[in-house]
């Protein structure tokens, strides 16, 4: 079963929910829990799960390298590049790796076979274990613009044996949890697509409601079943609740504004580790999702 945790608005509590859910589930020895932190721009889950990292690999995009001896500056490569990552003048070819998506069009269409592809590192991927939890995260290098290629590589680590015959047999013994980044554009889509269920974490404020509506539109477009965790539920107003009721979106869990949670969070301590009633709440959250699917 693949459950992603997303939000729309930043700072609503995605990582908190994902991490605590993982820890609560991992206590059950019958369950195999995998955690993927797909917020590769600002990964935080490791601060709470404290995994022992056992492997690290570079993530590269194949970018064009021009062989000046073979190039005749015909400009075909620039012509086929929709991302403006190549510029050709009378006697020079300029490649802008930051704009390159690694599609391979230039390499394929160069009439003189003057282009080869070399790996351009955009970040790293790390794997390890946090107790019994299989952990993977990635980190976009400073100054690099594109997160999705790293997220794609993280998603490839979804354990095959967890999810064979997923259409027929969604099992609740193997659970992959995905911590998604904030927003609604390509890094989020890459993180949550192909999930069996998405938990949307929100807060009962005007910003929370506005961004929740956008996030719900994304999930409807991707056709992923979804439900809400309402964080800091006792502040703000009731418009998020009303919206969920009106649109038949289940509120799976409500968490009040709690100084104990805030202080523990600030120290990198997951709430289930210091408060058993929350461990129960997160198990109940999972049961509700398992029933829905």
């Amino acid at each position, binding site marked *: 079963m693949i459950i992603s945790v997303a939000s729309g608005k930043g700072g609503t509590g995605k990582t908190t929910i994902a991490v605590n859910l993982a820890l609560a589930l991992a206590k059950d020895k019958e369950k195999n829990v995998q955690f993927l932190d797909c917020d590769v721009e600002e990964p935080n889950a490791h601060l709470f799960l404290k995994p022992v990292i056992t492997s690290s690999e570079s993530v590269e995009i194949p970018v064009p390298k021009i062989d000046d001896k073979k190039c005749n500056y015909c400009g075909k490569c620039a012509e086929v590049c929709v991302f403006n990552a190549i510029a050709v003048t009378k006697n020079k070819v300029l490649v802008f790796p930051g704009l390159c998506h690694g599609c391979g069009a230039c390499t394929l269409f160069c009439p003189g076979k003057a282009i080869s592809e070399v790996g351009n590192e955009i970040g790293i991927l790390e794997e390890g274990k946090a107790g019994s939890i299989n952990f993977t995260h990635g980190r976009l290098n400073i100054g690099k613009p594109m997160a999705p290629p790293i997220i794609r590589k993280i998603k490839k680590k979804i354990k095959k044996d967890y999810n064979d015959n997923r259409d027929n047999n969604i099992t609740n013994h193997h659970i992959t949890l995905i911590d998604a980044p*904030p927003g609604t554009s390509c890094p989020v889509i890459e993180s949550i697509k192909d999930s069996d269920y998405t938990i949307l974490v929100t807060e009962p404020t005007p910003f929370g409601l506005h961004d929740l509506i*956008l996030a719900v539109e994304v999930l409807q477009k991707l056709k992923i079943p979804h439900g809400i965790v309402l964080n800091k539920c006792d502040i703000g107003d009731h418009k998020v609740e009303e919206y969920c009721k009106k649109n038949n979106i289940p509120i799976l869990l409500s968490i009040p*504004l709690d100084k104990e949670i805030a202080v523990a969070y600030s120290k990198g301590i997951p709430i289930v580790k210091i408060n058993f009633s929350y461990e129960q709440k997160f198990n109940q959250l999972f049961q509700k999702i398992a029933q829905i699917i």
Partner: protein
Amino acid sequence: MKEIVIISGKGGTGKTVITASIAALAKNKAMGDCDVDASNLYLLLHPEIKEKNDFYAGIIPSIDLEKCTNCGRCQEVCRFDAINTIKDQTVINLVSCEGCGLCALVCPVQAIQMKENHCGEWYISETKYGPLVHARLGIAEENSGKLVTLVRQNAQKIAKKNNLELIIVDGPPGIGCPLIATLSGANLAVVVTEPTLSGLHDLKRAVKVAQHFGVKTVVIINKYDINLENSINTERWCKKEQIAVIGKIPFNTIVTEAMVQGLPAVEYTDNSVSREIKKIWKKLSKPSE
């Protein structure tokens, strides 16, 4: 003309809340909301939209099923796993498609058409606090960096046209292309952080990106009293990096109350948050900054 961008790294630290209050305090300025994914600033500034523009970026492919022979060549070359055979038909998954156009180029029977993608809108508005440029990226769309750049360019145009000395920009979270598009060429980046391990971790990365692009940085620690030890650690790190901490805002639920009323905090009541933001604005508006 000076451009101040308010960024964070970590989401939810309070960028938009602070930007709205600064917008209420600053005179003679234009504003831009570069969080095009999830644009919230307008909820506090109540703009009257004067101009609406369509945003086109990227191209989307579509297969002419009558011409398609299912030869599979497009599937072979697609690097983004966006083309599959479903029930004997070649199907392009537009969610995975990156719009590179390679499939259309290699198709031996020219069965794939590429067309311009309408992926959002941007607006020029009047507000009580001055002109605002903001945008809405379409659901599940890419090219957010391009839309961010459009917002900034138009804010700059308006400021020039109206002789406004200042542009204030509400930035997106993260450090990827929308954030880079927000930062490049700005005069000052105000990084809003919070006194948590996540906040400090993300602050360091955001600052490094700003430094990478040569943008001067200052820091605001929001909700600083949630964890005084972390707040001090953040100040220590900033001192080591020679980055000025220009304000420490206390946690106060009045911020949410003001938001529910649709008001910037400084316009709601006199409170601990508005007092600190006023002090911050005084520092930011000094000529040397």
